[in-house]
């Protein structure tokens, strides 16, 4: 409603809100005692202390690797599957209902089966994260492909392009804006099963860190873990947004 206000003013309000929240949190922490609710100062100090240790970096690195690999491979697979689904209607119709079925099953529910089949390796974690992302991206892309103007396809065909040329030269560039938007949206989705997966089948990772803090009554470690997840997400989103803006410029992508 108020897009006319200068950007710096909005920043200021955001900053003010954050400061208010931190203040309230600190007061609540003082009132309840640090073992029940650790205050922001304590969590921040713990963060700066932990970030210098190798253990914390390995933990974060392990989770990051799972999420990003799962997201990247999942969206790549989803992109290809979505284009094929949108291009060949019969294939899309056949595969659509099983996909809907698997979309409503939380990926975490598949962990026990996959652990017995494939063992407790990195593969199943990436597979589970990637699978959720792939389904979401594929359905999005299939719809985007069907919206590609038929005139474009007919023009390419009449100029003698084969199916492979049409795929690379027409379909991919036409759906890239949609694909990039969908990929960025599914980044948050890729983070949505990491804690479940890591508590059910992992030795290290942020999810494992949060979950084992419960046994030792370390509320500050659990909070640090939650904070870490949030920061990881924001960082990944920023990098992805910048990369997409540079790459997507050619395809007239805005935002």
């Amino acid at each position, binding site marked *: 409603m108020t897009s006319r206000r200068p950007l710096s003013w909005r920043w200021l309000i955001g900053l003010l809100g954050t400061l208010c929240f931190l203040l309230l949190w600190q007061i609540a922490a003082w009132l309840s005692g640090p073992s029940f609710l650790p205050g922001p100062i304590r969590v921040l100090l713990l963060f700066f202390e932990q970030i210098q240790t190798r253990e914390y970096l390995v933990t974060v690195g392990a989770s990051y690797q799972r999420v990003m690999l799962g997201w990247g491979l999942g969206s790549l697979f989803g992109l290809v599957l979505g284009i094929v689904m949108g291009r060949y209607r019969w294939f899309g119709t056949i595969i659509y209902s099983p996909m809907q079925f698997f979309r409503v099953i939380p990926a975490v*529910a598949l962990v026990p089966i996959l652990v017995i089949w494939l063992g407790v390796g990195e593969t199943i974690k990436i597979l589970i994260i990637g699978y959720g992302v792939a389904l979401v991206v594929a359905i999005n892309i299939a719809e985007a492909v069907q919206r590609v103007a038929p005139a474009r396809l007919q023009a390419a065909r009449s100029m003698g392009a084969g199916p492979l040329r049409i795929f690379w030269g027409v379909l991919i560039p036409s759906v890239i804006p949609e694909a990039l938007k969908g990929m960025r949206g599914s980044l948050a989705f890729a983070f949505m099963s990491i804690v479940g997966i890591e508590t059910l089948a992992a030795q290290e990772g942020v999810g494992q860190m949060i979950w084992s803090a419960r046994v030792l009554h370390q509320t500050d470690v659990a909070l640090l873990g939650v904070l870490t997840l949030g920061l990881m997400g924001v960082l990944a989103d920023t990098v992805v947004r910048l990369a997409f803006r540079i790459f997507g410029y050619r395809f007239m992508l805005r935002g």
Partner: protein
Amino acid sequence: MKLQSKGMQALLILLPFAVALALWASMSAMEVVPSLFLPPPAQVWDAFVQMLQNGLIFESLGVSLLRLCAGWLLGLLLATCIGWALGMIGWLRRGIQPLLFPLRFVEPVAWLSMIILWFGTGEMSKLILLTYASFFGSFLYIMTGVASIDEVKIRAARAMGASGFRLFRTIIVPSTVPSILAGARIGMSYSFLTIVTAEMMDATSGVGYIIKYGSVYMRMDQIFVGTILVGLLGIAIDYTFRQAIKRIGRRYFLDQL
């Protein structure tokens, strides 16, 4: 993807499942993989019938559904009230926006550790966790919906003398029904994901627990029953929502959902 007849459509929907079932049955009949890894369909069916007879299935479904609905409703109610309030108050909304953004990347189940430390492992913590999950899914949606109401509408109502509760009832509520419905659906999908995960991580009852129990005792047939049950429950919930949105949403032209 429009097809000519309903029968053809049903056939196409069922075909992949039939193919998968046939593949599964023939694979275990030819013993390509040991039955410890892939139990034959008959064994899974037997496990299902047995669990149906000793009441485990109905009990688990009941417990999970009760948790799910209670948490979802409470979270949606909170999200709607706070979403209405914050949607109207611009400065407050912008003040909390930077706090909400990182939360988008934090799985609701991540809070379970804290919640257990604060409230123990009982039903109370599950209710709180699910309320949060539902709130988390729907709040931002509802708030954005309120904030994006056409200002001309509000000004017109004001000019015609509506204010306070009247303005709220005649303009704000009907304009946000679509975003509340959409938010309710997203909230439900987050709640469902969260309850299944939480029951697998830390519970002694519910649908997720069937899977967990099976995996602790290496009972592949039970894991299969649990996983299929979760899938069917998910489909039932999704179907209910589609129908409800179709019924209620027609008035508020929601065909795009």
